[in-house]
């Protein structure tokens, strides 16, 4: 399983309910169902990925996240709403983060950190848009239209009155929490993983 998904799986309490926004082939939901009796539902837009989910008995709804969650989910429907490696490809990440906290008690987001040192080197020294393992596409064919950094995301949370409960970044070895990633997450974190809730909740 992808490193960020393994960390998310660790964070989610057994027996809880989750919504996985952009669930892909249902890897996380399947793992949580089999290992911690988590009741989950996934949203996915890609036809092939949905076929995989259905094959594995994962509840999946074919939906475009950019249309919002209004047409399917009422307030406070889930313990957790997860969005892994998807935020940066959305039309309006800020609105979706709000939606996550409308339908769920807690949100969990992972995204590729644009300020990762390898990316900085490519942009700062070579003067090209970064292409890294976390961001494998070229600028012209990338679905990632709203890239951000660890600092950017935390600023957004502050702006939207969102309380960050937990943060982890993984580096290029995908081992979590080395001394460098702890001290300089915005420089050495390749993938950022956040758990958050509404302030005052």
């Amino acid at each position, binding site marked *: 399983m992808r490193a960020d998904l393994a960390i998310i799986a660790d964070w989610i309490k057994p027996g809880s309910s989750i919504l996985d926004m952009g669930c892909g082939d249902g890897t996380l939901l399947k793992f949580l169902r089999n290992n911690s009796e988590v009741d989950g539902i996934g949203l996915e837009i890609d036809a092939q990925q*949905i*076929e995989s989910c259905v*094959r594995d008995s994962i*509840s*999946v709804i*074919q939906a475009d996240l950019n249309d919002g969650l209004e047409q*399917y*989910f009422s307030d406070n429907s889930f313990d957790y709403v997860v969005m892994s490696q998807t935020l940066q490809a959305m039309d309006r990440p800020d609105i979706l983060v709000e939606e996550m906290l409308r339908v769920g008690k807690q949100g969990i987001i992972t995204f590729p950190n644009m300020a990762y040192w390898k990316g900085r080197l490519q942009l700062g020294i070579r003067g090209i848009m970064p292409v890294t393992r976390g961001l494998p596409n070229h600028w012209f064919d990338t679905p990632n239209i709203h890239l951000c950094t660890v600092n950017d995301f935390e600023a957004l949370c502050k702006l939207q009155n969102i309380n960050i409960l937990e943060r982890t970044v993984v580096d290029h070895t995908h081992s979590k929490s080395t001394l460098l990633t702890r001290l300089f997450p915005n420089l050495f974190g390749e993938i950022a993983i956040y758990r958050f809730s509404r302030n005052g909740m």
Partner: protein
Amino acid sequence: MPDTLPPDSVGIVESKSMHFDQLLPLECGKTLPEYDIAYETYGELNESGSNAVLICHALSGDQHAAGYHAMEDRKPGWWESCIGPGKPIDTKRFFVVSMNNLGGCKGSSGPNTKRPGTDKYWGPDFPIVTVRDWINSQQRLMQVLGIEHWLAVIGGSLGGMQVMQWSIDYPDSVRHAIVIAASPKLTAQNIAFNEVARQSIMSDPDFNHGHYLEKSTIPRRGLMLARMLGHITYLSDDSMREKFGRELREGKLNFGFDVDFQVESYLRYQGHAFVDRFDANTYLLMTKTLDYFDPARDHGDDLATAFSSATAKFMVISFTSDWRFSPQRSREIVKALIKAKKPVSYVEVEAHHGHDAFLMPIPHYMNVFHNYMQNVGRDIK
């Protein structure tokens, strides 16, 4: 029909009939004293009676869902694309039951059958039956056939409505509910189309207030018009453009009111063919059944409450170009199921075929359907 049967067809099948002399109370307040249900089955029922799947038909469908009645048949059953060995509804694993709904015209009691104890056709006096009445009659056949529960109830369009009603009315009898190209209730636009269809039938001079069988007439023109109108709404703008464009039948304009364009010829052909196989009173009745369907009505107009008793797992499928029962209607079903905390998956299949897409072997649709049915098969005891 080819000279040999395709290997993935159920092959030669026959329609059977079951007589019920138990009163059937109807939602309209009337009672059917006795009735017949025509049905077909494909595959074998296992010993525990736990591998049965019910197929519910749409407005103009019937019990002949798969296979051929005779080698001379030009066409197989209406859902040949999905039912058969190795197909999504795999007859090697499932015992498939398909019935002609009450009020139909293919052997079940309906306007074109004789009223019990008389030599007269029911005609327009056959009571208006609802989806709920159908489910009650289907449940009786289920018991007679020794079926413990439906492993799955599956249907498209009006058939999908029956699937929902099954899951609500007999929650313990349905394990999986597969609702395809359906709607939780008809929109005003849909009812309007049905009303035009009914008016075209009833205004045909040969309709004779519905007593046309006694008078040995058939409201051919009215029924044909109704079908032509319906057919337009089952296709999409794109599929009609692709199929016919503005192609001329004789390669030139005729400057008259007869057929110029291929699409006109096609609609007339479809209309004519329909008159030969369908009953006008049944058409009136089935469109009313459609109009009346609204399971939320008995639950404070809240569909989620209506679904609250259901124990089935749901699979909902819609098609992007379906404007008769649009994806938006299916999303309403999905939203209600989620609110009612029922397990549900929903797929919106990219297809240009319009409402008729649910009958087509569209690859993504078939894959999803096949994958889902594989899981259904794991629940066989």
